[in-house]
């Protein structure tokens, strides 16, 4: 038994070093280099010239203004829509069925441009409502300009804002009811209890809406909107290449705006009174049938609204010839066949790097979650903030930073330049998914308390055996959730994908859809692909619901895992 003189329980230095190296190589250095590139000339001297040029062009000032106002408008619209709905649900203590609650997270996993294209089909002059109402006026969202973008993003992110709002208020619905029965007016309860309680959730939901809208590239482009920061940066990079200093400046402006907005909303989130816990599921005691029916109707009408919004996509996927008629002239399933036949390669590729990004995310997320868990409280707070702040790096900015940083670097062994492979894509996805991964990692860790691991250690098992036979099986559920969340987030990250993909066949499904939807003959295929994607996401969510139903206690935490943690 006298074994090697092993010194002390191993510290995770190796893991920490790898983690630091990853963040350095794929986040800090590229972004840092981009900052320099924005302010230096050909010889590398610091020069403020590009700033002067940037400020001199009214177009960029306009883009800056448009970006901020579109993002703000979307956030405010989504909040305005979500608030009354949340108040009604709170007032009547209506708890939407779990599956509907989960669909609140759909915006995280479906790119908003799908909604834009669907609405254009429905409301454009070419068919359906748009054609019907043509004599009355133009309702094509592409003709509305900036408000069109705001409305679409608001519709897209409304469920998310609603969910975060419900999370931060529902815990107190019961008490509010008792207070109401004691004679407090509902108006007072809403203004004095609901609003203060809901503020953190609302701030969080609005911040996400703002950041995602600011970063969105495909939706404004699909609407023909170019005078926004993200499209301008995209245009400049594709016209002048990655040397262009103005695109660096635009990327930096986007980062700056994001950081400011995130800081502001974080202030609200922090000052909120709640523990940021999802609603406790109580049996609502005193709902009359009438109330229940009313509530049901309410929820069904919201669901129906969304079904209607996406019906353009569904119709297109089933349409044979549809040209300037109210409804398609014929219906075919050929688009689905074509999507399944021609896009499997793309789907597999998507699986590969969204999977790779998600695996990386889960590994890093777990490591960071563990580090955060074990660090002293002061550090814990900083780490949590740092992780959450990663949320505010727009995909466009990160992609531009990569394009400037990696050219000329080659993959070891193979010798292929990094930017000619899809290698950068999963890296960008993974950096973008990290804030969510860390939260999901914390959730996964919770399912393996220390004694369970120590009991295994004592049994004499090797590290590998412990990982294989104890850690993985026990954390499987948490890891799976973490993986799915990161995977979904990577799959919709169109902004980085549009700039970084080296070849079309390497694109995530969302980009294939985007490309397809804009050709006359591939349109049906694109729509079919979109419908299939939404169906897959919906199926995955339903499977998640079924799986969690068996594990009631962790269920709510599972939902919580989707949100980056906000330190109090």
């Amino acid at each position: 038994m006298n074994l090697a003189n092993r010194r002390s329980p191993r510290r995770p230095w190796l893991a920490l070093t790898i983690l630091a190296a990853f963040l350095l190589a794929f986040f800090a250095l590229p972004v840092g280099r981009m900052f320099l590139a924005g302010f230096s000339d050909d010889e590398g001297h610091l020069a403020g010239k590009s700033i002067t040029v940037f400020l001199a062009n009214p177009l960029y000032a306009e883009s800056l203004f448009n970006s901020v106002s579109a993002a703000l408008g979307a956030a405010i619209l989504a909040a305005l829509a979500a608030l009354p709905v949340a108040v009604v649900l709170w007032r009547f203590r209506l708890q939407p069925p779990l599956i509907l609650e989960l669909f609140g997270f759909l915006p995280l996993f479906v790119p908003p441009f799908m909604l834009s294209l669907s609405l254009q089909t429905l409301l454009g002059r070419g068919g359906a409502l748009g054609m019907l109402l043509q004599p009355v006026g133009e309702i094509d969202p592409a003709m509305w300009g900036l408000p069109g973008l705001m409305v679409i993003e608001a519709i897209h992110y409304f469920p998310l804002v609603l969910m975060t709002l419900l999370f931060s208020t529902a815990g107190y619905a019961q008490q509010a009811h008792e207070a109401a029965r004691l004679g407090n007016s509902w108006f007072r309860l809403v203004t004095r209890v609901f609003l203060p309680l809901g503020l953190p959730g609302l701030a969080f939901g609005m911040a996400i809406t703002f950041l995602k809208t600011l970063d969105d590239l495909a939706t404004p482009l699909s609407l023909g909107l170019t005078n926004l920061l993200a499209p301008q940066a995209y245009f400049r990079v594709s016209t002048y290449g990655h040397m262009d200093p103005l695109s660096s400046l635009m990327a930096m402006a986007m980062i700056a705006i994001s950081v400011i907005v995130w800081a502001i909303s974080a202030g609200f989130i922090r000052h909120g009174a709640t523990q940021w816990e999802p609603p406790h599921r109580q049996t609502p005691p005193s709902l009359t049938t009438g109330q229940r029916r009313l509530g049901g109707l309410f929820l069904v009408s919201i669901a129906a609204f969304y079904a209607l919004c996406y019906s353009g996509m569904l119709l297109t996927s089933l349409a044979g010839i549809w040209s300037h008629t109210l409804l398609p002239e014929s219906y075919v399933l050929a688009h689905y066949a074509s999507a399944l036949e021609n896009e499997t390669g793309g789907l597999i590729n998507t699986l590969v790097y969204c999977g790779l990004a998600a695996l990386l995310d889960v590994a890093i997320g777990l490591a960071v979650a563990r580090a955060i868990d074990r660090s002293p409280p002061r550090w814990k707070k900083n780490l949590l903030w740092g992780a959450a702040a990663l949320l505010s790096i727009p995909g466009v900015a990160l992609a531009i930073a990569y394009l400037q940083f990696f050219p000329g670097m080659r993959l070891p062994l193979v010798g292929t330049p990094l930017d000619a492979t899809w290698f950068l894509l999963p890296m960008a996805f993974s950096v973008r998914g990290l804030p969510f991964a860390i939260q999901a990692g914390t959730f996964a860790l919770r399912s393996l308390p220390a004694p369970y691991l120590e009991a295994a250690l004592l049994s004499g098992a090797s590290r590998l055996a412990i990982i294989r036979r104890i850690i993985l099986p026990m954390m499987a559920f948490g890891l799976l959730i973490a993986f799915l969340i990161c995977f979904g987030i990577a799959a919709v990250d169109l902004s980085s994908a549009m700039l970084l993909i080296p070849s079309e066949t390497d694109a995530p499904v969302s980009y294939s859809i985007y490309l397809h939807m804009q050709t006359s003959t591939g349109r049906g295929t694109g729509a079919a692909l979109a419908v299939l994607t939404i169906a897959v996401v919906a199926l995955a969510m339903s499977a998640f619901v079924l799986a969690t139903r068996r594990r009631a206690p962790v269920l709510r935490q599972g939902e919580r895992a989707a949100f980056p943690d906000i330190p109090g």
Partner: protein
Amino acid sequence: MAYIQLNQVTKRFGSVTAVDRMDLEIAHGECLAMLGPSGCGKTTTLRMVAGFEDLDDGEIRVGERIISSKAKRYYLPPEQRNFGMVFQAFAVWPHLTVYENVAFPLRIRNLPRAEIHARTEEALKHTNLLSVAQGSPDDLSGGGKQRVALARALAIRPDVMLLDEPLSSLDPHFREEMRFEIKDLQRRFGFSILYVTHDQSEAMALSDRILVMRSGVVQQIGTPLEVYSNPANRFVFEFIGLSCFIEAGLSPEGFHLGGTRYPWPEGATPSGEVIAAGKGLLAARPTEIDFQAEGGIRGEVLRKVYLGETIDYRVRVADTEVRIQKTRRTPGPSVGDHCGLRFTRPHWYPANQASSA
């Protein structure tokens, strides 16, 4: 002969010293309970013995072999110490059956199939788990799960069994049963036990010796009776069993309470140091105070509560309230009565000694 030996074992977490220069010897087959409030360093000590924590100073030996030593920079990983451990949280793996849980450490050791089976069966038999062996531990009660944990620890035939608050998560009536089961198993298998608990009755019932800790420092080591009847200081006195304290002025002749001077109680004279301090604490167990009509320390009954078999009194003596417990069969005073108190086994402690409260 000392089997487990801790010499000057020290553990620091940042600026906090969790365990301070601890010396401890546990004999072969002995059961030692470590008792103390939470945060006193007892679990840290256990984890250092188990090998989950590093030492900042000192060394730990088991038998002839060193398992952790700061000076020799030696550390034997937990899996090579052949210790069994049972955790408060059960730590029974939910994805394995009861049988698989118990057999896991044996399988890991690559024992022959037949031996794995024999040992697992044996451990299951002695913990009364044979009937549920193929079920999931999630279907068992807390007591059942803890039995699985116990069986798992037994199966490896450990030299030492480390029990970290093993009964705290159980229903009270299970706890008593389990105490005896653990004791039984120890007799049968002959391992040493290091038992961490904050529950003194558990410690009393199970252990051969009790170690009381506070803030990383050992307060007293002794048999349960020694620790109970001769607590080394106020902290131990207060921590073990019910207690009441009266602060009194001291002089070489006796003590003063509320202006009255009393002679030293029978067989209880404080040490010269305490007397020299001029002030001291008279400590007594509530059951070790008798009422007497005349004489004794005078007090007034404030409250009288029937607790079934016993009656609980509150008596004001000078400006302190004293708690007294008598069986209901002994006649006692009523509320408002003035009475005399006689301390049958009092102890004196310095007045400024730290309390456990």
